[in-house]
């Protein structure tokens, strides 16, 4: 299950939205075929179809779902409070611009590289763990004053960290989280939400990744 697809599925579950999962075979390169490129010209997963709307980029998809279904399920965007909503946006960008670039290469080395019969590159892992450590030092300070990233409430900003961190925690690199007490406590909290636990069960690398999601209108 691709991390980006998991992200969207977790969001759909938190919002209690019905959806249909349409498999796309990544190992057969289906995402680079013309019929898929017509949906996402970058040839990446996932893609959302909701009526006439076709959407790619998992963070844009999750924001769309959280906004469209803001009155149902868990309040991921804090839309009724301008200040809280603004902070959710800030920490969503922090995940996107600071956290993701450091964690993605680590997960890639541990999980994707071996699938090609190559050993993980320890230099890349170490280099990015150092970067990730510096980012998490800031998270540690932040989470010493608020329970979650955007404030004392779970939000889409925290949710965006789930898929990659879930994979990281199964490797020796987990220490980068475990060494920081507030980050560790935050991780234990967000990963033990029922929706998070259910999604973690579906996250095993190497399977046919389900990529195209059709959200059914309520």
């Amino acid at each position, binding site marked *: 299950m691709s991390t980006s697809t998991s992200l969207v599925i977790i969001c759909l579950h938190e919002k209690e939205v019905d959806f249909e999962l349409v498999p796309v075979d990544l190992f057969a390169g289906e995402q680079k075929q013309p019929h898929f490129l017509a949906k996402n010209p970058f040839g990446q997963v996932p893609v959302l179809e909701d009526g006439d709307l076709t*959407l*790619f980029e998992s963070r844009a998809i999750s924001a769309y779902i959280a906004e469209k279904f803001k009155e149902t399920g868990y309040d991921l965007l804090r839309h009724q409070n*301008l200040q809280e909503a*603004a902070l959710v946006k*800030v920490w969503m*960008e922090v995940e996107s611009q600071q956290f993701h670039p450091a964690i993605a290469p680590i997960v890639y080395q541990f999980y994707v590289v071996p699938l090609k019969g190559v050993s993980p590159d320890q230099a890349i892992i170490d280099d990015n763990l150092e970067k990730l450590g510096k980012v998490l030092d800031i998270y540690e300070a*932040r989470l010493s004053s608020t329970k979650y990233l955007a404030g004392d409430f779970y939000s889409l900003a925290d949710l965006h960290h789930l898929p990659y961190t879930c994979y990281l925690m199964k490797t020796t690199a987990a220490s980068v989280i475990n060494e920081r007490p507030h980050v560790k406590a935050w991780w234990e909290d967000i990963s033990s939400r029922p929706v998070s636990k259910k999604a973690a069960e579906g996250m095993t690398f190497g399977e046919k990744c389900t990529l195209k999601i059709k959200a059914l209108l309520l």
Partner: protein
Amino acid sequence: MAAPVKVYGPTLSTAVSRVLACLIEKDVDFQLIPINMSKGEHKKPDFIKMQPFGQVPAFQDESISLFESRAICRYICDKYADKGNKELYGTNPLAKASIDQWLEAEGQSFNPPSGALVFQLAFAPRMKIPQDEGLIKQNQEKLGKVLDVYERRLGESRFLAGDEFSLADLSHLPNTQYLVAGTDRGELFTSRKNVGRWWSEISSRESWKKVVQMQKSG
């Protein structure tokens, strides 16, 4: 009458200029407070309180304090929806979703290689840091592939998210300005017919011309 919003940072910063362009498009009054990065002002405790990663810009709107330029832009567009360019972030959820999609593409696919090239080609020489030819070549190739996707898209659509200039296009202005006007790699953009047409159109908007003027006199 509300106090002007505050933007902290140097006009030469790509992220700061992203926010300035958005404020000018939205006709929102602002006060620019310069931050001298060569003197390390962005690493001082007072600044870190506003931006824990010690990066620019930081932003304040009365009691709301934000960072991450794309989050700041989204906030400005949401709060001041009725001011200035009302189409900038879409006037309906479908338009907004399409804009978010391309804003994410900018942040995830366009920014890493273009940002690396801006640093290597425009900033490193000024900072007397040796250029890394390997990184330049690698990122030029990556950016070329992204621009091939843009070339196809901009053959179907006047702007990235549709027929109107949006926050998604705006977000590309800062890095592209440096590459086209400040380095010898502008042909990455100008040699692609549709990308070249698009660049010409978005960079000749009054709002961007004002930002460039601020950069020259700042």
